[in-house]
């Protein structure tokens, strides 16, 4: 393990002297849990973007890696694969990209193959298949820090000779051995010349080949980290496992509220200050109203929830990277089985509390197609972070804060919790109904690999959070800002003698009054109706809409949102509105991702009709029941 011999093999011998890149596009390939993404993040940093190949649902990142000479090499991070058998979609994409058959993707002229050095007996099989493609390949034996720590060894030079490709021991976490990547990218291209190609087909022979290659290279795997076993004996303990699971899940949500709320309040305070400054800086009139009421208040009312949303993704990200989520899937499997699903659905459903869009993409790990569709269909019932601002606003406006259980748990917390439970129960009922009818499947669908526990990689987490942040800001800057501006425009039309109409005579009021008959039975007036219409773009838009509507209305202009809402809703109407939001499918992004993942319009349309009907009926019942008991 002499660090100077990290890059060995044929290609290292004949470097170009000028250090220029010899490849333009390099594919990064590897099995799941080998640290491929950490490596990709380390190499490309912020110079990366997410994309989708046309016609397939598999997401991939591309990024550029800058060499010392200033040359940039385009890196494609392909989905994690165990083999190159094009049966699963992830593997088909990888094979197609590597063969240049993927429209929209450049044919890579080299491959960086990332393997887990602690699992070479398994992962060398993949190496055999990738090398057989004939492209210049660099094999990285990653997680070398763990291999050393657990007392494992491998002779990199020997392995390079066996495989006919350069091989390096690396650790994407510590940065060990990564200069091998730069050396590979400037060396003269050379097709691999393995001593002996693996026999394809029979897995037993493939494994024998892998073990033989490994042992020729003096490969000795390290012991499984002792603390992974110790932690598992607690986290998967027949009794304590369940207790800890509950504590973790409660802790996740507790964190969101106890840390996220003050952060949101702070941001709100800041945005309000800016609004005051803006209003003072711009001369009164059309432009003032457009910028302050239309744009700033509209988009800003949604922006305040960014801290809570990021916090949720941060906490889920930490749980995922540490390896605990895989254990949580095992523990929840027994409960999930009761509604006909399995533990693999747990991870997407937990993420759906953040946002249904990444949750639905996360269902790809569910092998059973029917289970996957069922999970996609119930995910939007989970209380996503876009509902949170709506709930917070209405609860704060209508539910007095009285202690309910002890001095710390108040009626508002109970109301919020009930809405979470409500969504969850509807998801369970729907899953049960689906899995015992149209999506019934033969069972035995739970296979979960348990990776060793690891410290989360802050850089990777930060990059993912930034992705979420960007997506959210993009939405606030496009959909939400756009809807706010259109609404503001409608409140200004039709103009009379250059003066905007009274809000009750405006174009927006006409739209509101048009749909009023449909929503009156739920206790909503026309303003709420306009809010509901706009919320079908995205749930939180309703707040921006209400902000704009009240901002231009002289009667409620000076009031804060909570006071103003009392002119639109009775307490019973407020309860009905909460229930409606708990169930309705009001999110274009979710519909688009369901369409993409199920490859048909059938499921998103069915889902939309089902959820909206449930929401309408439930809101109707909630309104009338509340009228009976609370008035």
């Amino acid at each position, binding site marked *: 393990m002499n660090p100077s011999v990290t890059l060995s093999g044929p290609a290292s011998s004949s470097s170009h002297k000028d250090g220029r890149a010899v490849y333009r596009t390099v594919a990064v390939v590897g099995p799941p849990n080998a640290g491929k993404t950490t490596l990709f993040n380390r190499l490309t940093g912020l110079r990366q973007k997410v994309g989708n190949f046309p016609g397939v649902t598999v997401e991939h990142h591309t990024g550029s890696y800058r060499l010392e000479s200033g040359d940039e090499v385009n890196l494609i991070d392909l989905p994690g694969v165990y083999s190159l*058998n094009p*049966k699963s979609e992830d593997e088909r994409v990888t094979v197609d990209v590597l063969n240049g058959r993927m429209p929209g993707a450049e044919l890579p002229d080299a491959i960086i193959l990332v393997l887990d050095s602690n699992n070479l*007996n398994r992962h060398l099989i993949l190496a055999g298949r990738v090398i057989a493609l004939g492209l210049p390949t660099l094999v990285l034996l990653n997680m070398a820090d763990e291999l050393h720590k657990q007392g494992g060894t491998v002779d990199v030079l020997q392995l390079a000779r066996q495989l006919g490709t350069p091989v390096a021991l690396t650790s994407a976490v510590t940065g060990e051995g990564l200069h091998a990547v730069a050396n590979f990218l400037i060396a003269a291209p050379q097709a691999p010349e393995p001593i002996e190609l693996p026999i394809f087909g*029979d*897995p037993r022979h493939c494994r024998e080949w892998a073990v033989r290659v490994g042992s020729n290279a003096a490969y000795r795997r390290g012991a499984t980290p002792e603390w992974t076993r110790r932690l598992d004996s607690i986290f998967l303990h*027949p009794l304590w496992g369940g207790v800890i699971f509950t504590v973790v899940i409660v802790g996740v949500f507790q964190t969101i509220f106890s840390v996220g709320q003050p952060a949101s309040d702070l941001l709100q305070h800041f945005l309000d200050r800016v609004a005051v400054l803006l209003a003072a800086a711009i001369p009164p009139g059309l432009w003032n109203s457009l910028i302050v009421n239309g744009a700033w208040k509209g988009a800003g009312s949604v922006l305040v929830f960014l801290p809570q949303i990021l916090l949720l993704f941060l906490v889920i990200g930490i749980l995922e990277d540490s390896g605990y989520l895989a254990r949580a899937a095992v523990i929840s499997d027994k409960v999930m*089985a009761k509604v006909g699903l399995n*533990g693999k659905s747990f991870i997407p459903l937990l993420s759906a509390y953040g946002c249904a869009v990444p949750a639905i993409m996360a269902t790809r790990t569910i092998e059973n197609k029917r289970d996957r569709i069922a999970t996609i269909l119930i995910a939007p019932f989970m209380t996503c972070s876009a509902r949170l601002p709506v709930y917070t606003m209405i609860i704060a406006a209508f539910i007095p804060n009285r202690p309910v259980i002890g001095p710390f748990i108040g009626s508002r917390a109970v109301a919020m919790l009930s809405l979470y439970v409500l969504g969850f129960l509807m998801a369970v009922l729907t899953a049960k109904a689906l899995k015992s009818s149209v999506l019934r499947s033969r069972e035995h669908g739970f*296979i*979960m690999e348990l990776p060793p526990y690891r410290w989360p990689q802050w850089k990777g987490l930060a990059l993912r959070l930034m992705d979420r942040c960007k997506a959210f800001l993009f939405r606030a800057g496009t959909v939400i800002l756009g809807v706010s501006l259109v609404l503001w425009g409608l409140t200004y039309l039709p103009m009379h003698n250059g003066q905007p109409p009274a809000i009750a005579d405006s174009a927006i009021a006409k739209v509101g009054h048009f749909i009023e008959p449909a929503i009156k039975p739920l206790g909503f007036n026309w303003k709420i109706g306009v809010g509901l219409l706009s919320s079908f773009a995205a749930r939180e838009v309703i707040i921006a809409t209400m902000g704009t509507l009240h901002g231009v209305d002289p009667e409620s202009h000076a009031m804060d949102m909570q006071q103003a809402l009392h002119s639109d809703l009775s307490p019973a109407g407020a309860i009905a509105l909460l229930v409606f939001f708990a169930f309705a499918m009001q999110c274009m992004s979710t519909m688009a991702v369901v369409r993409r993942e199920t490859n048909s319009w059938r499921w998103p349309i069915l889902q939309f009709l089902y959820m909206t009907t449930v929401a309408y009926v439930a809101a109707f019942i909630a309104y009338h029941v509340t009228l009976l008991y609370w008035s």
Partner: protein
Amino acid sequence: MVFNFMTKSPRKTRQHLSDLNVGESGILDGFELEPSVAEHLMNLGFVPGLEVLVARSGPGGNPRVYRVDGTEVALRRDLSRLIAVSPLGAEAGAD
């Protein structure tokens, strides 16, 4: 196809992974599963001829965690009932 490992005729009743207790191990014989599921298991290390240890049992005894080829994989009981093994005896399985 490739997944035809059921060559040895079952002299007595075939043993399955689900018959082993926690701490016992067996040699993988083959799968009575659809090829796609069997292949996924083989990618995870369940290659016939290898030794599998029942490492632990989750809450409620299902799913259980198996250790094979250096990795740990959780499987539900209805699946482990369809994976054939030849028993090794408990002493060989002691880890």
